[in-house]
């Protein structure tokens, strides 16, 4: 009897929640999702993010007078952007660190769903603003993978040339700001001075100093300027000379060495556990570089080394950036000498808009141009992930396409975001003065962390 009753209750439940029986509202909790009538100011603040709920766990063993929690940031000159750190101090020693991110959240992945594939690089280039070409490249490569097209050889070589120059400019800023944080103020002036050299070339080629929107699905936006070899030759001549100056100033500098050596150790195991890639991983003795492991844009044809250091401290992370600049210069030189002739965009009418000259001559071209710029080109259904080696590590882009001209979902695996996880490990049990050196060595770009 009892069993039967249970059964009947079960049946009743299913009956009332089926289409025939109609929905029994009070048996579900659907109505409970409405907004509360009186939202307190505190609750609103938490929702908008202006008030962070402090769920910081405090160690019971240490007494109150020895322990102090210090907020660093979000407005701080040496957090490399708007990073906020909650640092638990015991005297001068850092016991625990909690990075709080989201102060630069721009909703770029959401914006990416509203832009066509041709407009996409405009958005992604602003993510990691120190390596804009890599963001454009990874978005374009993913779109091309979905479209299943191959860009011409000249476009590929231009892409390699520009991205490797970008790696140099990005590392120069990392060296400059890293130096400034630790007190080597000349490094700041030097780094930005050399960066201008590269930025002038970028401006000449793409029209902008940063956020270029130059590498697009199907090729690059414009050909290289006249006499571009002259500029590259100048870069190839000046940068190594200046790097020697940096070495002269810092390599045997006892203050610099004392400040950086054996500070902020990050071992290979820790790197692998936290998903840390890029110079930090290579400075810990593990030669993982996507340019060798998963080559893109024909980079396997170039002759270059992947520098690896064993020390895994802040000094090694600084040093490896200098060595990587030298390797990038090698690639740039090879790209300059072997630049193929031919088109710099794919000659596929569905992807590449017709050149401006054709618009005056052909109605068809005009229609094509209009269609590509208003509606965009359609991308077959599917999903794709492509990763490149950005100056900060593995930069990946994952796109889900529903067959329309806009991505259904675009996600970016930002290297800075993953590398920032290591901060509590790097900073734990080190003096507070080393905290700044540790942040600078990981070289996070907050635009890439928060997106």
């Amino acid at each position: 009897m009892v069993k039967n009753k249970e059964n009947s209750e079960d049946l009743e439940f299913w009956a009332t929640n089926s289409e025939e029986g109609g929905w029994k509202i009070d048996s579900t909790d659907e109505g409970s999702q409405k907004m509360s009538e009186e939202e307190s100011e505190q609750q609103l603040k938490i929702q908008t993010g202006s008030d962070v709920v402090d769920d910081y766990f405090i160690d019971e063993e240490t007494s109150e007078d020895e322990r102090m929690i210090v907020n660093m940031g979000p407005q701080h000159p040496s957090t490399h952007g708007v990073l906020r750190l909650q640092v638990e101090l015991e005297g001068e020693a850092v016991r625990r660190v909690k990075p709080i991110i989201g102060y630069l959240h721009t909703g770029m992945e959401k914006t990416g769903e509203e832009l066509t594939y041709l407009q996409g690089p405009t958005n992604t280039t602003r993510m990691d603003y120190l390596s804009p070409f890599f963001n454009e490249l990874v978005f374009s490569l993913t779109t091309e993978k979905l479209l299943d097209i191959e860009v011409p050889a000249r476009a590929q070589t231009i892409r390699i040339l520009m991205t490797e120059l970008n790696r140099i400019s990005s590392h120069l800023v990392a060296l400059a700001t890293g130096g400034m944080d630790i007190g080597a103020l000349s490094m700041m002036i030097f780094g930005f001075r050399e960066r201008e050299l590269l930025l002038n070339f970028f401006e000449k080629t793409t029209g902008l100093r940063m956020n270029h929107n130059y590498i697009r699905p199907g090729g690059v936006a414009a050909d290289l300027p006249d006499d571009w070899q002259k500029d590259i030759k100048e870069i190839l001549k000046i940068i190594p000379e200046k790097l020697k100056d940096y070495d002269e100033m810092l390599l045997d500098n006892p203050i610099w060495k004392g400040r950086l050596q054996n500070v902020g150790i990050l071992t290979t195991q820790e790197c692998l556990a936290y998903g840390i890639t890029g110079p930090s991983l290579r400075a810990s003795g593990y030669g993982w570089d996507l340019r060798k492991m998963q080559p893109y844009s024909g980079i396997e044809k170039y002759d270059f080394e992947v520098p690896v250091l064993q020390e895994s401290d802040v000094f090694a992370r600084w040093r490896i950036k200098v060595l990587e600049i030298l390797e990038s210069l090698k690639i740039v030189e090879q790209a300059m000498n072997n630049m193929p002739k031919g088109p710099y965009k794919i000659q596929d009418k569905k992807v590449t808009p017709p050149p401006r000259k054709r618009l005056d001559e052909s109605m068809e071209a005009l229609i094509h141009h209009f269609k590509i710029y208003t509606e965009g080109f359609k991308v077959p259904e599917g999903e794709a992930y492509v990763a490149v080696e950005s100056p900060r590590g593995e930069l990946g882009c994952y796109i889900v396409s529903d067959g329309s001209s806009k991505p259904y979902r675009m996600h970016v695996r930002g290297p800075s975001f993953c590398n920032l996880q290591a901060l509590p490990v790097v900073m734990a049990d080190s003096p507070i003065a080393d905290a700044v050196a540790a942040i600078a060595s990981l070289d996070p770009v907050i635009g890439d962390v928060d997106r």
Partner: protein
Amino acid sequence: MYSPDNIFTTTIDKAVRWSRTQSMWPVTFGLACCAIEMMAAGSAKYDLARYGMEVFRASPRQADLMIVAGRVSQKMAPVLRQVYDQMAEPKWVIAMGACSSTGGMFNNYALVQGVDHIVPVDVYVPGCPPGPQSLMHGILTLHDKIMAGEINR
């Protein structure tokens, strides 16, 4: 020794305005891409020291000018306002770049659509990001504005 050649006359108004323009210390308020260009403006090639403003102050108490360099998210907005409130009068604000002027290309849930929703802005610098020259033009425009304006604002 008194020498009549060493004297010039001016109004107190003019002297105050002139002195304000000659050493305007900005607070470091770098947010995004524009911050890199702001740093480039401060370093070797462009050299903001020519206008007496190479000292980017870490403390808002010592600063006269806030250059909002980059996109302001909803989460950053109260922090920005607090830093502005901490600055001593007289103070000025430059909205550097499209994002801080109008929200730029990001018209979505995350960004404040123009920093003038939070703080009064004196000069808007267009560009994405504006080059160092644009920023300097913005600064010189602000200087002109100060020279033309009242001393008590």
